[in-house]
């Protein structure tokens, strides 16, 4: 199977590559529209700033090819900022448009507790989830963020509570995303990546 990590100059590619490699899954990096077009599944990793991510994707002419790949049914996994990029806009960069796979927006978490939301937290599951198959209910995942999508309509399948209730896992058709970092979340994170690969491989 041909899994591509979207490379846009920032992000956290090596740790995702290593996590996949531990599962016996080889991946490659895609930084051009052509490279995006010829793959079976895509992963959009992300750390940093919403505006910087969208501008980097724009400079590499990757916004439209990403949206087209999703329309064609190519499985896409967004991680952390990669989840946030799937929304229409973000409080972090009000002038920059997101990929708009979902019409809602990304909000700054209200400062009712310590921010950034940094460390290991648990999930509250609200709908059946393919990514969470085989993952214990009380499992902890590693988060590091100050912005989050509070609502993703039917696509929100698991939530986390810190400062507000926000989307921790979203799934809709061939679109998957986690606000936490599966590649940094030990064995349960590996299970999430393995579940995505299985979906992408058509064995889900």
């Amino acid at each position, binding site marked *: 199977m041909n899994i591509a990590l979207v490379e846009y100059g920032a992000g956290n590619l090596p740790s995702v590559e290593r*996590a996949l490699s531990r599962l016996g899954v080889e991946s490659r990096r895609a930084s051009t529209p052509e490279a995006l077009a010829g793959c079976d599944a895509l992963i959009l990793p992300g*750390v940093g700033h919403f505006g910087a991510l969208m501008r980097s994707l724009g400079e590499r002419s990757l916004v439209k090819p990403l949206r087209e790949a999703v329309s064609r049914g190519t499985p896409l996994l967004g991680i952390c900022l990669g989840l946030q990029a799937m929304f229409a806009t973000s409080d972090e960069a009000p002038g920059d448009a997101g990929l708009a796979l979902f019409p809602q927006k990304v909000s700054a978490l209200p400062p009712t507790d310590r921010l*950034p939301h*940094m460390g290991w937290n648990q999930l*509250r599951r609200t709908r059946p989830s393919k990514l969470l198959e085989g993952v214990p209910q009380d499992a902890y995942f590693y988060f590091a963020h100050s912005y989050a999508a509070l609502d993703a309509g039917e696509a929100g399948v698991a939530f986390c509570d*810190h400062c507000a209730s926000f989307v921790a896992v979203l799934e809709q058709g061939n679109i998957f995303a986690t606000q936490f970092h599966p590649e940094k979340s030990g064995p349960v994170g590996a299970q999430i990546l393995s579940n995505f690969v299985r979906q992408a491989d058509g064995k889900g």
Partner: protein
Amino acid sequence: MSLAHRIIPCLDTDGERVVKGVNFVNLRDAGDPAALAARYNIEGADELVVLDIAASRDHRPTFLETIRRVAAELAIPLTAGGGVANVDEGRAILRAGADKLTVNTAAIRNPPLLSALAAEFGSQAVVLAIDAKRAGDRWEAFVRGGSVPTGIDAVAWARQGVDCGAGEILITSMDKDGTRSGFDCPLTAAISRAVSVPVIASGGADTPETFLEVFREGRADAALAASIFHDSIQGLGALKRYLGENGISVRQTG
């Protein structure tokens, strides 16, 4: 459901090997960083910190290679630092495989460095490390591995550092470091009350009770320790079980 308190083993290195000392002096060899990292990754560490305490320019390529070797062993977050003085050095550390970087001396001398790092990598990647020593009824920040006093109040500096963009504070008590006499709870609590970002307590770790104290009285979000883990005086699993039994939210593993 709540955010777990983190237990963070720390690898102080000379760039290449893990070293340890008491009160920042009398360093001796304590092993291979990648081997220790692999062990802590399995045993349930919530995060790992690797520091270059020599932080000499000559050794920087060696330290970057150490970060790469350590990161290759981990499925948990990695924080690295030591002598980071500008955005390019920070980028090199993150590119080598760290998720967050620590800054200390250069940030005190040039606080806008924190804003520059946060703008480039996001606040979640910028950890302000402060080495503090009691001075009367307050704490003074020291730089250059604890060797140079600054006259700056550690609590005020933590607050300013967060205003500049630091996303986390790593507070090390120089009075407690290496003594195994418990964390400095008053210092940690003073920092914790002063800032809105997570606080990692460091220096003085010993028994599970000392961790319980720093989470309760010190209001720490995370606790860091080195030699008690390197020397297997304290196991991570047993420590977390003890904390869980005493009502502290922790991520139980294995």
